[in-house]
């Protein structure tokens, strides 16, 4: 008998108290009827066991009885929920992380490692907060009487969204470009103003401070122009004539700039080279010369490739437009 009581308790404990007694009484009678029917020749305990196992998992039986919603968010809200959550998650944490990273860079005397850790921590924290609060809001809406407005109105063709404008330049490509340029610019500025920040533990700059009299500011202006150009690429999205011309010009100018910089100026700080030599670097002048030359050559090759690729894409688009 104890088994029956335990089974009934396992079912009714999940039910609202108003139903518990009634369900318990009915289940009791049913189980006893079933046991009486099936106990021929068997001991009572075996009969009870087989009847209860036939009735199955008490949790599932309780679910059948209960009318409460057994889910967090139902299908009518799920689409909107997912859309809002995805849109928030792929923007807000990155914005917060960037702000924290920048304020750490220029604010305190912290180290590059702690700045990145703080930024990542802030981004993850915000992401978890967003997920929790958005889910909670939709959990409550699911259990209120409100319905998504889309489901209230009868649908007409006029509600169809426009097709997205065709893009030749992906927004991802332009955005990545902007991020890379900004990061490179900030890196150069930090190398000059906060040399100890990258763990060298000294106030000796890697690049020649003399460059900041003319070459470095000029280069930053060039970077800024490139940044603006990427914003235009992001907004326009297609290879217009002016975008192609500016792209090619920017690549040519920066290539020439880099070549003349390397040929006429001492790029690496001589003091830094001395420190490296003291730390046991052999042939420091050779090493520095080759690393500078290889970097410059790589940049020039990248720029040339960019020109070729842009012109090729433009030519392809042009021929398609002519065909159409």
């Amino acid at each position, binding site marked *: 008998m104890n088994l029956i009581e335990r089974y009934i308790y396992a079912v009714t404990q999940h039910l609202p108290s108003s*139903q518990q007694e*009634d*369900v318990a*009484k*009915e*289940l*009791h*009678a*049913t189980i*006893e*009827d*079933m046991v009486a029917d099936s106990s021929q020749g068997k001991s009572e305990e075996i009969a009870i066991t087989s009847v209860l196992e*036939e*009735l*199955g998992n008490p949790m*599932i*039986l309780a679910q*059948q*009885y209960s*009318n409460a919603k057994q889910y967090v968010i139902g299908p009518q809200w799920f689409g909107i929920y997912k859309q809002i959550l995805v849109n928030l998650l792929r923007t807000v944490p990155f914005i917060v992380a960037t702000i924290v990273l920048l304020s750490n860079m220029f604010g305190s005397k912290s180290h590059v490692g702690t700045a990145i850790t703080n930024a990542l921590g802030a981004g993850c924290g915000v992401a978890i907060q967003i997920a929790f609060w958005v889910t909670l809001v939709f959990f409550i809406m699911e259990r209120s009487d409100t319905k998504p407005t889309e489901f209230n109105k009868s649908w007409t063709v006029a509600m169809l969204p426009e097709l997205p404008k065709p893009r030749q330049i992906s927004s991802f490509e332009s955005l990545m470009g902007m991020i890379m340029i900004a990061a490179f610019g900030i890196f150069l500025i930090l190398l000059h103003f906060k040399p100890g920040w990258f763990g060298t533990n000294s106030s000796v700059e890697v690049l020649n401070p003399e460059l900041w009299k003319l070459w470095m500011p000029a280069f930053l202006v060039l970077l800024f122009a490139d940044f603006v150009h990427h914003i235009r690429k992001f907004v326009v999205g297609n290879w217009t004539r002016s975008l192609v011309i500016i792209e090619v010009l920017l690549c040519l100018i920066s290539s020439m700039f880099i070549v003349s910089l390397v040929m006429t100026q001492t790029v690496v700080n001589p003091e830094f080279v001395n420190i490296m030599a003291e730390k046991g670097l052999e042939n420091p002048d050779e090493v520095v010369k080759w690393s500078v030359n290889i970097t410059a050559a790589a940049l020039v090759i990248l720029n040339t490739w960019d020109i070729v690729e842009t012109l090729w894409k433009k030519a392809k688009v042009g021929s398609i437009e002519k065909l159409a």
Partner: protein
Amino acid sequence: MSRVDSIDELFNNQALELRRGTVVLATLGALHTSQYGYQLLQKLEKSGLAVDAGTLYPLMRRLEKQGLLESRWDTSDSRPRKYYQASAQGKELYNRLISEWRTLNNTLEKMITERDTL
């Protein structure tokens, strides 16, 4: 990622879908006379429509809440039993469902024989 169900599994799911509505129909029909749960369970099983106790009892309770069944406790026996009977509304719903069932059955029957004769 996508999991291919075996044909048996697919059949079981679809057969369950097909049966789901018929249990309500059979219950409302059988409860034109007053019966307690276990009686109904056995009656359905004898007619060849075996239903899980775990499905039938919650279903009767739901139908009662919707006003389609009425219930009373009979404590005269050694085991107190809850007797259910279709209400006027329950009987009306039953009649309408029956005509719906017949229409569906005729339509499908016609489709199936047409296909067979092709």
